[in-house]
């Protein structure tokens, strides 16, 4: 019956035409029974229900609410504001991946959207002064990617830190 499971998922995927795998999900190139296995049926980004269009944004602010670019020596912290709206219900875990100029994940800022309770934004501080951002003088383009639930990124912002 397990083979039926595989077949059924394939049929479901084909029937619904909505089985796009997330980025980076590649089927095995090896010709084996496993090669016939369909990619996992997921639908990132998060679904939109009730006809409500999905909107998402990340805004990064410096001292006084200013928008970049910033001189690294003049920034004590950045404030990362994430917002999200869709027809989804319930509690939606979210995170903002903060990527340094070399593309490595510097940290993850986590939050929760509760659309039913009206909470569709969250803000987190990213400390700069005195941290490894400053001591390593990590100047260049920083990327802030918002993901909601288990889907891929739904919004992205970039901010430049300069010497």
């Amino acid at each position, binding site marked *: 019956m*397990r083979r039926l*499971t595989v077949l059924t998922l394939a049929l479901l995927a084909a*029937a619904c035409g909505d089985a796009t795998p997330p980025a980076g999900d590649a089927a095995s190139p090896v010709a084996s029974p496993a090669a016939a296995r369909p990619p996992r049926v*997921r*639908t990132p980004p998060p679904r939109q229900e009730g006809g409500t269009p999905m909107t998402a944004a990340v805004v990064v602010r410096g001292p006084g609410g200013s928008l970049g670019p910033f001189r690294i020596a003049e920034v004590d912290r950045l404030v990362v504001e994430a917002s999200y709206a869709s027809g989804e219900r319930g*509690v939606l875990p979210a995170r903002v991946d903060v990527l340094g100029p070399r593309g490595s994940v510097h940290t993850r800022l986590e939050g929760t959207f509760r659309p039913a309770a009206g909470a569709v934004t969250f803000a987190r501080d990213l400390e700069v*002064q005195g941290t490894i951002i400053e001591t*390593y003088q990590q100047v260049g383009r920083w990327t802030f990617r918002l993901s909601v639930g*288990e889907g891929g990124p739904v919004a992205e912002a970039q901010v430049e830190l300069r010497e």
Partner: protein
Amino acid sequence: MSVPVHLARAVALAVTLAAALLAAPAAAQNLTVSLTPGATSVTHGQDSVISLDVRNGSATATLSDIEFKLPKDYVALGGAGPPGWSITRILGNGFWSIRFRATSCVVGVAPGQTGTFRMEATAAGGSVTADEQDALKDVTVHGSCGTGSFSLGSAWRTMTFPRKVLELAGAIAPTHGATGLVSDVVWTVTNHASVTVTGVAVTPVVVPASGWTSAGCTPASLTLGAAGAASATQAVTCRYTYGAAGTYRQAGSARGTGGGGATASSVEVVAGDVNVAAVTAKFRFESLVASTGERLRAIFTVTNNGGGPLTVRPPRYAELALTSLAPPPGAADPGEKNVPAGKSEDFTYSFDVTAVVGSPYVAAGAAVTSLGATNVATTPAGTVSDTRVEIVPNAVVRQRISGPPYAFDVEVTNNSAYAVEELRLVNPQNAAFTNVTHVSATGLTYSSVTRNSPAGTDFITYTGSLAPGASAVFRVRFDALPTVSITTHYPFAFRVYPRRGGELLREIVRTIAVSTAPPDVADFTILSDASGQTLQWRNVSTSAAPHDGVVIFRAATAGALPLPADGVDYADPANAMAGLVYADRDGSTVTRYFDATTGELAYRVCAHDARFVYSPCTTAVRTSAVAPAGGWTHNLGGAALLVPGAVPGSRLAVGTNARSLAILDATTGLRVFDPIPLLGNPSRSTPAFQLVDGRRVILAADDAGGVTAVDLEAGAPLWQVALSGEVFVGGLTAINHRYAPAAFRAAYTHDVLLVPSTTGRVLGLDAATGAVVWTLDVSAAAGKPVSLRAGVTYDHASGRLYVPTTAAGVYAFDVNASTPVASDPPDPIAGWSNPSPTGQYTLACTLGPVATDLACADRSGLVLVVDRATGAEKARLATGVTLPATLWPVSGASAGYVLSSAAQTQRLVLSGTPATLALAGTAWVPGATLSPAQVFATTQTIVVGASDRKLHQLRLADTVPTGAAAPLPSSSATLLLGPSVFDSVGQRFVFGAEDGRVWAVKAF
């Protein structure tokens, strides 16, 4: 004498008849029908059970087909024959009857054997005044195997069974507890007679009969109104105290006086079990109906009734007593769990059903615990069904599947000996699974859909002829699925009718789980060394989505890693696939996997629940690396650019931006304990420290106001505090009690941690407990708001501490003048003059090589050497080392300092009177970003990591390079390296990197 021919024929016929008549009495006694002892329970007008034993007294014939006609006004519902028998028809022609037939002669009731036939029926109702006696209307043998025939005689016609007018139900609370438990059984008695029943008393039966005392039942006697009256149902409460450990079964019956003084009574019913012990176990199947070959799950639950923790080793598969069940190939035994006091833990088993239709299946076993063995827990008996139903998928995460509409496939297999002409799919929750609609069907034909009949229930009818052994597959869809916050199982009924429009033969319930995806495993790390890769993780189980196991994939790159498909058990060899390297199930507690493959590889670990719904699989993705010769590298999954804490030859502690503190074996790099979660990103360093009581701890302060002390022996937090509103980026400093001045030791009994906050406060914490002993408000001392982003420097000789600020210079305080109470923080040092009232500092000051010197480097690179007592300037040098990262004192003939930043490392020399500060050497790596420099006085070297992926060694005297480690293997051309520590036992430098790896490189 001659006899006429026709007369001779007549005589011959008479002789034949006489012989037949003579033979008849022997045949009449070879099949005996009797009530199965204790198994028949019939209540007036209610669903009831009649159980019959049929003994085959024939020497040669095997019984294979028999039909029972029920008493007048009974309505047949179903039933079960001996193993291998099935019901072939239920007829309601005047009197209801149920016909049973063996699926083959092999499973028939052989000579000398007895078969049990259980019939479920709604008993006769209507107006009665007391218990009645009923009898079967007929028994018919339809078929046999072998030679000879059967005859029932007439004895069965005198067999009667009572139809009782009282109905009894019991409920127990509490059902678990330690010795001395007091528990109530509340019996609810209902009168179905049309007259008042008086003197109704409940007679409890407790098994075993000892180990408990009873406080009696209240009220002792009831008067129940006639059926339908409000007083027809009343309750009796019986209280018990259980003095000995054990499982006590509470049963009971009721009896009173009905019309005409006749008896009115109930059948004996079981209210349930009371488990009295420090630990008790229960066992249950997810489904009590399954078909041959089907995989079935069972839950073994251990409850800790005691007051302390409990370690439970559940029964292994080999230790279970199984009937008609077998463990699946490759099944792994469930692992141990700790059960907190007053809590329960579930252990999951999978079984394949092995027996023929009609057989019971049962599992039983006992767990081993730290308090001894549990009771032997036995599941209720399930029945092997002649119809197999499977829903695909049977567990969904709503956001993952396509829709709306949401499609499901149902496969129905007919394992009986007869054809099925009609099947109904019943949806009893049409508000949650809305608008069920037929999509397609094979094997049977869609007939109709009926909605909201009865209210809240939809059903789809399929008709045709599904032959024995054949399968039908239906696809149905729903317009909406329910939204859930925890995994919720929704039942669907499948009703089987042998004849179209005929009587219901069987109803099978299967569920669809609307799931919340289980969380990814946490703290996934990979250690790479010369032998291969050691993967470790932490299983995260939540009540909303309990952890059941993991699956691990491997590929050349992260982008090529497969994702699991929901509903697929990859531990089943039939589901092997490319890239799959490991899978488990059944509540596995495995958290480590070794792969003897070396090199740079990508791994993904996904968790799954009991129905193989997989976690998002997004966070537990890591790559291994080529280990350096004689060393190792451990991917911790979060930027690791702080100097590790180290106990040489023993432990390493690495704080990462994964907000955790990893504790590794210094020699092998193995994860000694699971990473300790921090509240935020750690700041500056995570030093090892020995408390005054001798315990070794690792300390960390983070940017979410958290301070954590980890016991290095226990591998668990000694304490962790969250200081609301505080932000720690300057690290922490410890006042070591044993080296502090006498005045301090007199006032304090413990070590004190100094933690500066961006709020301008320095918090003094008891290092043994994390309690804040006082708060030093530097803003108050400065007379204006200040922010602290540099570490505090403590002078153990004088008891002074020095606090640099981000824009207001350096302040000094005297800890000796304080006491460990909130109202008595350290006071400013009298006579201290701020050496740089507008100085901007994010780096801690350094005690100079001269006992009276303090050196501070501001953000512009200006180094001031001042008097520790007064702040008076002794020397200065504008070095140009902006945003400095470290300032080290250097003793000896050419005393001075090492100052480093991301761009360069400078050696400064202090000389002359008055003192002057001069540059003795500068080092940098063209185009590279440097780690904070580390000074190793014993080897007179400076070690700096650079983004060229090399560890550079410089001469301490003048920063002249002496060599460099081979570049680290990495897919990145450049990589930020963290400051290193040296494990003098293992002779390795250990340092982290921005990509989350920690490296141990042999000394060079």
